């Protein structure tokens, strides 16, 4: 009976997750490109051997990991500060709460176009400002390092509100009595942050970390529109590479391999992270 009730959910997961994964797995052991007339031809592990030797894939994997790590890290810090601020009572809080969510509601492509405009040299507002204060053109989107930072800034700008909201929900589950009790025990408010707020918020931080980490690792449209993977491929993500292979190069066998490899890397990274967190004792199940 229980199984029967679960069936719709299982079917859904099967359709949207398990089936594509099986399909990718199958495709990754086939050559399927314009050279085979788009017919799948078994080619053993040729795709996987090519992948192991594909410097571009590994560079992309590294770049994507770095992008995800730095963006999500910054997002968590900023979001925590914002959530703490929004959890306090002050005039105009409701308005600010609604406004803070705006970036999250904006479509990624529109936002990426906006950033591209802002950083446009020499006609974007940022460069005009630089010129005004006498810094001269910075050419931010012409250097790999700076371009990478711009992608991080754009991602942080867009998704911090989401994490902030998640953490705010977490903060509001913490009973106010705990803070009162802590003060009467002799603790100052700043100590309460470390002794009560952070430990009790940890489950929410972990949810945000896993959710956003996976999402940031799969970054695609932001990069596609903002930089197209450039300059010199320095901002290309695994998802963008897989997309190029499928939709531009019509090499579906290799695209599936790259996609699957990216997924496996992400999953193992998450597992390692979860294990480290468990070891560090941060992930004790807590129900406030």
């Amino acid at each position: 009976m229980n199984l029967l009730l679960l069936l719709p959910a299982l079917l859904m997961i099967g359709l949207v997750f398990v089936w594509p994964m099986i399909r990718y797995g199958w495709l990754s052991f086939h050559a399927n490109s314009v050279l085979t007339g788009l017919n799948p031809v078994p080619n053993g592990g040729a795709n996987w051997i090519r992948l192991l030797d594909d410097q571009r894939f590994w560079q992309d994997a590294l770049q994507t990991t770095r992008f995800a790590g730095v963006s999500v890290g910054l997002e968590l810090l900023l979001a925590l500060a914002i959530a703490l601020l929004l959890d306090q009572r002050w005039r105009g809080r409701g308005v600010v709460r609604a406004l803070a969510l705006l970036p999250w509601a904006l479509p990624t492509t529109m936002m990426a176009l906006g950033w591209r405009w802002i950083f446009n040299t020499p006609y974007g507002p940022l460069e005009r400002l630089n010129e005004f204060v006498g810094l001269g053109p910075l050419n931010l989107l012409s250097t790999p390092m700076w371009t990478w930072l711009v992608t991080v800034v754009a991602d942080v700008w867009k998704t911090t509100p989401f994490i902030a909201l998640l953490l705010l929900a977490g903060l509001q589950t913490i009973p106010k009595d705990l803070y009162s009790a802590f003060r009467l025990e002799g603790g100052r408010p700043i100590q309460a942050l470390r002794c009560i707020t952070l430990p009790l918020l940890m489950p929410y931080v972990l949810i945000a970390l896993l959710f956003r980490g996976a999402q940031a690792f799969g970054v695609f449209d932001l990069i596609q529109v903002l930089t197209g993977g450039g300059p010199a491929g320095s901002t290309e993500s695994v998802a963008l590479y897989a997309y190029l292979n499928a939709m531009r190069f019509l090499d579906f066998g290799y695209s599936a391999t790259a996609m699957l490899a990216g997924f496996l890397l992400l999953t193992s990274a998450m597992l390692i992270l979860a294990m480290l967190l468990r070891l560090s004792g941060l992930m004790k199940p807590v129900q406030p």
Partner: protein
Amino acid sequence: MLHLNGLGKRFGEQWILRDLNMQVDEGECVALLGTSGCGKSTALRLIAGLDRQDEGSIELDGEPLDSIPAERRRIAMVFQSYALFPHLSVRENLNLGLKIRGVSPAQRQQRIETVLDTVRLREMADRRPQQLSGGQRQRVALARALLRDPRVYLLDEPMSNLDAQLRDDLRPELRQLILQGTQPVLYVTHDQQEAMALANRIAVLKDGRIEQIGTPEELYKTPASQFVASFIGRPQINLLPVDKQLTIGIRPEDVGFDPEGMPCRLISREWQGASQLLLLDSPRGALRMLCAGDLSLSEPLHVSWLTSAEHRFDAGSGHRLAE
């Protein structure tokens, strides 16, 4: 000795506590009794320093507390919700405050072990609060308060989350652990029975003001108003209007059978073992009456009471009229 001088607190235009004047002596327990929203918990938060009063002052042993922040007032409070830290074990819960206050590790351990024995929680020391029963959580909260070594104890409805049986069991424990000390204790409750059982004095609060303050006996015998009269004493007092000026109150236990008395009709009857509560229809209105449990009743019933047992109240203001 805790001294409250004209304490008041408002939210916006609305005063939720006003003119609170009170003194709690060393070793004394005063109960703040009232319905919910009467300002009794607010009073505790002001004393603890968690909220700031809008008028009046608080003194402890002759020294004003008003400019001292909550964390340095050395006041212990037991919350209705217990406010135990859910991510810490019992031992860690007890340890946290000591650590923050800079007690040495050796001393910390010794004091925690002692208090764990006192509240009989040694076996539970490594459990998290959510793995404990309500009564056990309550005892952890008491233990934490004891370890604070406070100058005043504030108890905010400490037993209202427990079932009746457990409350009866815990009452002696509470008395032994906290009320026998030398510190003043303020005990907030909405349960008159609990207040009568535990407190040396009771302050009945109504709409943010003290209606009457006195020993349980004083409140029972000479209630200052209809409100106090009906709040104190169970079964509830009978309030019988006489005319536009006068209402008299007569407690159910003061009503007796008297062949010369008023004829009454029995409407219902609650048998409670040693006693029974009768609800009667009398010429002066509905009447509650308490009588011995083994009494067999035969209608028609005739009842009366001594005039000296009557409480006389002004029908308009509800205040007690001079004898």
